[in-house]
């Protein structure tokens, strides 16, 4: 039961955290009217995933491995794009907050319902089909034992619970701190999703180097342990990481984080800096 619990937790965690942050953002910027759009995206992703999962599990048609990888891989890449957009959407809002330009702030928030729906949709839908197939498999096992289904459901519930805790924590933060830290957090999450997508493409044979490992710490961080599960669930950390995965992670993280930090924390150098002390004087 514990193993099934951990799978459910891992599959649901990242989506729950991203949605938790999105909801906190919408609430903090006084746009509660966008909440139905968030839930519509989440609900649609869940319904479609469960329906397709059920059709593929119980119906006469199955899904080949290649198609499943291709769906997972392409949705991951789409999710990276949307999360990146969400990060800079927040960063832009934070900059307007700093300069107290209320009309600029309103314009930044005016991203519209459709964008919010899409963000929630892809955050949940990315791993939705895989999770649904896992859930239906545990539902099918109930004629021999109910503990797999119970474990899987409790795992997903725990993921949603953690997403709710993040929401509760985030709404209490000072607005500027909220934008700065959730943004950085999302940059690391998105880098992980990209690295995960790269690994999917390596497994599907689209990218080479599946067995060229940059590091392998599986002995220290077992993928079946609770901390391995949390690291995998939140940051898509894989204990055996390939060079391609590492390269994708760094290539996304470094420029995105740099631009984000400049946007959020960077202050234009208006005041003249103090003149540098001449070399001879100090000695």
């Amino acid at each position, binding site marked *: 039961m514990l193993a099934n619990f*951990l*799978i459910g937790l891992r599959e649901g965690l990242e989506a729950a955290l991203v949605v938790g942050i999105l909801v906190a953002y919408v609430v903090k910027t006084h746009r509660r009217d966008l909440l139905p759009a968030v839930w519509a995206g989440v609900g649609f992703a869940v319904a479609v995933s469960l329906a397709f999962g059920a059709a593929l599990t119980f*119906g*006469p048609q199955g*899904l080949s491995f290649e198609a499943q990888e291709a769906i997972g891989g392409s949705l991951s890449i789409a999710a990276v794009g949307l999360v990146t957009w969400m990060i800079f959407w927040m960063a832009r809002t934070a900059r307007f907050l700093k300069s107290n330009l209320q009309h600029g702030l309103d314009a930044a928030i005016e991203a519209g319902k459709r964008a919010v729906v899409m963000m929630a949709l892809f955050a949940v839908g990315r791993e939705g089909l895989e999770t649904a197939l896992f859930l239906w498999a*545990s539902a099918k096992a109930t004629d021999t034992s109910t503990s797999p289904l119970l474990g899987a459901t409790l795992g997903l519930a725990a993921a949603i619970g953690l997403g709710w805790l993040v929401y509760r924590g985030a709404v209490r933060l000072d607005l500027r701190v909220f934008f700065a830290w959730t943004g950085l957090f999302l940059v690391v999450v998105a880098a992980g999703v990209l690295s995960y997508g790269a690994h999917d493409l390596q*497994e599907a044979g689209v990218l080479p180097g*599946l067995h060229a490992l940059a590091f392998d710490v599986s002995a220290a961080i*077992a993928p079946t342990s609770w901390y391995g599960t949390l690291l995998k669930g939140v940051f898509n950390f894989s204990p055996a990481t390939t060079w391609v995965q590492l390269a994708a992670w760094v290539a996304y993280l470094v420029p995105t984080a740099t631009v984000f930090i400049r946007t959020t924390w960077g202050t234009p150098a208006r005041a003249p800096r103090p003149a540098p002390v001449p070399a001879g004087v100090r000695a």
Partner: protein
Amino acid sequence: MPRAALSAVACAALVLPFATGCVANTPAGSPAVGAGALKVDSSATACTLSAATAPSGTLTFSVTNSGSDMTEFYVLAADGLRVVAEVENLGPGLTRDLVMQAPPGAYVTQCKPGMVGEGIRSDFTVTDSGTPVGPTGHAAAQLAEAEESYAS
């Protein structure tokens, strides 16, 4: 619409960009039904397949995790490196189907209890059954039709 057709259409709509992704769960009427359906039992220490050979075409590996930890099942190419097909997220007590279109050749199967290391491997041979690999008959016709209407 009959349930079978509905499901085939739903599957085709989902995987249209990857046109060969739909495979019949139970290839009815095909002589390879029995031989194409394999059972795999993955425990903490063993990886037992119901057969070491199968005829080419649609193969269904019904993988059961009888261990107490998560496991994964892979079908690898003869070099033991390239992944041909895999099923993941196999919690204890679960059975999941791995469906693949297998051309004739030599393969390696692998169970990975605990999801680390080299796993438990054995050789697997796909013999030439003479049937072409890929969607055939009704499914192929439907796919072609769907593709055509998608393009126009």
